[in-house]
């Protein structure tokens, strides 16, 4: 496997030095927000902590979390750590309700965001001479712009296609020899299906080698599907406007988890219920501290994104720790018999079993009884009861292995559960205490 680097020195910095760099930057950023951002000073005082209390990286747990709500205190400029004249860009991140989060960038913030993207692109084999079709929204959303700048930094030719107009997307790919594209996974799946419907052979008629897909969670199965349809490599990418946009973590050529750039972000994973760190390798909510942002550094920001650390060293030689693909939102977590469970864990198990249809529902009843309702696949049914009983046993056993709780499983007729549309209600909690 070809391993290339944009910034070999920082990407392969030995762990000890990387940690030293992180500590220096953490101390600096804590000092800055304490002195420049009244809201942070107030939060620190309430928590009884001063910048001088941060002596090691572990001391970060003394600092309070920053939540989405904090971004609306003294809105919109309240969290600026630089004079407003230093700000050269506004991006917003849409909340599901009310006002959008306002995120500001200095010139250096934009440049550094581009630097991170340059690392991400080169890490997965993109280089000068490649043609990147950037099909994310250019606008208030950070995704498209920062990707654009990062790609230009590498020397890639960028097609600022923006999203939508699938016919034109495909025309651009054909005419200009697109070698990589940046899209949301759901749109990529759609574009891929249209390409095939049109009778275009992507392996012969197109030059696409790889795709960067992110901005919404998707499964390993979806990745494989898109890869097979188009004959390309799909790389997971992760970012959020609050942390400066895309490029927080991308996959390397080994496609096994996303390297978080630890010189730029201090990552923790916590139990969203208790705020305590999870045990090694356990799923939890990703917490990020921006170590290098100027305009609006955030301390221990609760991303609400679920993931886990992959601690083994990566064969690519990068020291920066990896996280798994984003598994969902921390708000989805529930607890049964003292065990933290995420619907995404259950979904992954169900989707790996033949005979199970797409829809499922989790019902929690008193005495911590967990019932997983599953629709059977029409084509699986052959009239035999024992085959159904075996299927149910298989589901129970595989779920028990993954979530450590033995659920009841009910097999349902196809089409009886509400169809999932994005945020379908998967968990129904009927427990009363």
């Amino acid at each position, binding site marked *: 496997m070809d391993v290339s680097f944009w910034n070999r020195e920082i990407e392969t910095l030995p762990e000890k030095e990387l940690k030293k760099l992180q500590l220096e930057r953490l101390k600096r950023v804590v000092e800055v927000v304490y002195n420049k951002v009244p809201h942070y000073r107030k939060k620190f005082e309430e928590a009884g902590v001063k910048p001088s209390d941060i002596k090691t990286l572990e001391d970060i747990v003394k600092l309070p979390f920053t939540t989405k709500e904090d971004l609306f205190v003294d809105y919109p400029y309240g969290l600026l750590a630089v004079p407003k004249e230093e700000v050269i860009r506004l991006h917003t991140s849409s909340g599901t309700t009310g006002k959008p989060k306002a995120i500001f960038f200095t010139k250096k913030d934009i440049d550094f965001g581009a630097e991170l993207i340059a690392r991400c692109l080169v890490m997965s084999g993109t280089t000068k001479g490649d043609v990147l079709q950037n099909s994310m929204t250019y606008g208030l959303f950070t995704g498209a712009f920062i990707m654009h700048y990062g790609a230009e930094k590498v020397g890639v030719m960028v097609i600022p296609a923006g999203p939508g107009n699938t016919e034109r997307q495909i025309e651009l790919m054909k005419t200009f020899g697109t070698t990589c594209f940046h899209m949301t996974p759901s749109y990529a799946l759609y574009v891929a299906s249209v390409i095939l419907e049109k009778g275009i052979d992507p392996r012969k008629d197109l030059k696409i080698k790889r795709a960067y897909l992110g901005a919404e969670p998707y499964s390993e199965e979806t990745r494989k599907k898109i890869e097979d349809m188009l004959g390309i490599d799909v790389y997971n990418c992760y970012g959020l406007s609050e942390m400066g946009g895309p490029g927080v973590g991308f996959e390397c050529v080994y496609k096994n988890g996303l390297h978080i750039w630890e010189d730029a972000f201090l990552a923790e994973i916590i139990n969203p219920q208790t705020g305590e760190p999870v045990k090694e390798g356990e799923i939890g909510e990703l917490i990020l501290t921006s170590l290098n942002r100027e305009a609006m550094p955030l301390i221990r920001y609760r991303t609400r994104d679920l993931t886990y650390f992959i601690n083994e060293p990566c064969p690519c030689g990068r020291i920066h720790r990896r996280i798994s693909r984003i598994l969902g939102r921390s708000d989805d977590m529930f607890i049964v018999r003292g065990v933290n469970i995420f619907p995404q864990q259950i979904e992954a198990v169900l989707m790996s079993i033949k005979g199970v249809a797409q829809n499922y529902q989790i019902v929690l009843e008193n005495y911590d009884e967990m019932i997983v309702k599953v629709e059977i696949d029409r084509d699986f*049914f052959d009239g035999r009861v024992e085959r*159904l009983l075996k299927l149910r046993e298989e589901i129970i056993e595989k779920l028990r292995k993954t979530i450590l709780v033995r659920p009841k499983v009910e097999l349902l*007729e196809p089409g009886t559960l509400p169809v999932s549309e994005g945020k379908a209600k998967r968990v129904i909690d009927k427990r009363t205490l």
Partner: protein
Amino acid sequence: MHKVEIISIFVENKPGKLEKITKILADSQINILGFSITSVKDFGVIKIFVDKTQEAYQLFKEKGFAVAITPAIGIEIVDKPGGLHEVVKFISSKGVNIENALVYVPESRKKAFFIFEVDNFEESLGALKNNGYNLLTKDYIK
């Protein structure tokens, strides 16, 4: 042809499920000739033997049911004490395992058939044929 076909429908064990199925058949003038239910607590499989198999199968499929057609063998039973016993004894003597069964009575008190599904249809049919027992064919299905 000694193959007869049974329709199997997967159902959740809830009130009104059977009614839904019988209504679909009644509305389409499909006659139920034989019937059985296997239930395991929360779900079950309803097996029906009808006069218009393909038509019934398409109907249930269109309505979104999990439905399958399974092959079965029918053997005539004599209407007298021990009639069923004799047939079942014969089947087991041939090493054939009965998976699921129902009874079809074309002529009340005169003619009845024991219809059953087996593990390996062709092999089982071969073992049972030409032994002096009357096997069910399409001619008896009206």
